[in-house]
């Protein structure tokens, strides 16, 4: 320490050399940051900004007129309904799949994992098309449905099915790695202590996975409410009846009713921002609990 103070010039060159060795010159750093910031502004901030700017172009009155009319309100209601059906279904499936895959070791596990991920790699339009092929008038179940007077295609059930398909992997794929990392020690201890299966899940597993579960659920919800391509194929675009919010945006935009289109779009953009906010918060919580876990393990060893 004394030597560094005495030979100030030495310490200076020393830190300089370290900087040169594992960091970039100032102009490279500045250039890279400038590139990233301008690309960020151009491709992410401007599209987000234009949504709100266009939505409020005609002031609050124009905005309210866009959002508070019968068609828009029924689109909002349908969107909420679809998410309220799809998300709980995937919650149950995600927990069941993660329990089987993370807590047990069986043949075919890798295949099951890949199959769960499958809907992510299918184009939204193809996801809609498969339900047309199943339930359309020329489809497998088409004649049967027509005879019994059940409408799936161009009606709410079709929209729900298409949404369920595209949001399929969200909860499961967040939970599986988390539960795999946590292992089975705590649950096995609970078995030894005589706890029943349901008690183990509620008292041991659920508190451990609650943040991961929330993470999967909010991502699933955002996609369920925002899905466009798949829903567009099966909806039939009947105003006030089978239009979800993204479909309502499309119709208004194609009618050159830009203020109303962007007003409804701004609600969806807000949903996206809230989703990202909660996602950040959960990531922070998961990191905090992960650190705690690591801290406890280090203390034990």
């Amino acid at each position, binding site marked *: 320490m004394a030597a560094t103070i005495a030979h100030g010039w030495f310490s200076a060159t020393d830190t300089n050399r370290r900087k040169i060795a594992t960091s970039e010159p100032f102009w490279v750093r500045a250039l890279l940051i400038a590139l*990233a910031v301008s690309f960020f502004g151009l491709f992410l901030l401007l599209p987000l900004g234009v949504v709100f700017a266009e939505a409020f172009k005609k002031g609050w009155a124009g905005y309210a007129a866009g959002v508070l009319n019968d068609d828009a309100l029924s689109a909002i209601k349908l969107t909420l309904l679809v998410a309220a059906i799809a998300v709980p279904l995937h919650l149950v499936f995600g927990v*069941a799949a993660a329990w*089987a895959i993370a807590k047990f070791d069986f043949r075919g596990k890798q295949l099951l994992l890949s199959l769960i991920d499958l809907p992510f790699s299918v*184009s939204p339009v193809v996801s809609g098309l*498969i339900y047309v092929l199943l339930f359309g008038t*020329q489809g497998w179940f088409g004649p049967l449905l027509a005879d019994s007077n059940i409408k799936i295609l161009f009606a709410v059930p079709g929209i729900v099915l298409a949404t369920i398909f595209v949001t399929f992997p969200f909860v499961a794929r967040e939970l599986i790695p988390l539960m795999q990392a946590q292992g089975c020690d705590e649950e096995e201890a609970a078995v030894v202590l005589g706890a029943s299966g349901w008690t183990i899940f509620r008292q041991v597993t659920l508190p451990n996975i609650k943040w991961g579960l929330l993470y999967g659920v909010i991502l699933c919800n955002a996609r369920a409410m925002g899905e466009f391509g798949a829903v567009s194929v099966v909806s039939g675009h009947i105003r006030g009846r089978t239009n979800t919010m993204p479909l309502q945006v499309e119709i208004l935009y194609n009618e050159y009713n830009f203020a109303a289109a962007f007003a409804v779009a701004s609600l969806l953009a807000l*949903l996206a921002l809230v989703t990202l906010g909660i996602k950040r918060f959960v990531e922070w919580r998961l990191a905090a609990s992960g650190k705690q876990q690591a801290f406890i393990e280090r203390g034990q060893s």
Partner: protein
Amino acid sequence: MTALPLAPPRRAFFFRQHSVLPGFSLALGYSVLYLALIVLIPLAAVFLKSTELGWAGFWHATTQPRVLASFKLSFGASLIAAAINVVFGLIFAWVLVRYRFPGRRIMDALIDLPFALPTAVAGIALATLYANNGWIGSILAPLGIEVAYTPVGVLVALIFIGLPFVVRTVQPVLEDLEAEVEEAAACLGANRWQTFRKVIVPYLTPALLTGFAMAFARAVGEYGSVIFIAGNMPMVSEIMPLMIITKLEQYDYAGATAIAVVMLVVAFVLLLLVNLLQAWTQRAHQRN
């Protein structure tokens, strides 16, 4: 422990390791049933439907000039967009991991915006920005550059939706890169550029390729963010998913199915590729 089998032989074949935890059959049974009903049976319907066409019908449906033009545009624009995303994704990951600057945390959080923003919203926002009277379009128009309602518009939309894939696959790998490796390179006399090219880039290559494949796969199937800015002119700016919609509107179910089968096969091949690349990334990771 070794002498006494804990489960009957048949179960021992299925289970790689015995477990005392309950609920396996219920959890697995429910998962497989739900998976079959929602995903597998409907997907099988597409392939079965396409067999009704026969080879000649399939070939005819997929080689019409308008369909071929949409294949070319979709694959071409997706390739270019994914390549641009690799370059900027690496810059973003690098800047976010290595540098501290004002707004870094906001940037880090908003990188996922294309995942969270509904595609239709992104689509109308981009179309409005790049239209001739839009914020960006009005700057580009006097220069003679038209983006909206041209194939370049398709490219812009595909860059937007693909960016987070590369950033989010490269970022964690870059965070795990030990400083010692770069210090060692410096000690051996490498300058910064040599260290980047010979040490950091090879280390990041599996992650970059994974991000590229994921961005490409997403871009090929993307619909909502593209159709508003594309203009959808036949032979010029129609993408593959739009061709399916067009065929459906003409009640040409067979034609739509044939294009869907091509897209599904491409998607499955890409999924396999991504899985292999991820396994490679993990192996490279463990070696370090």
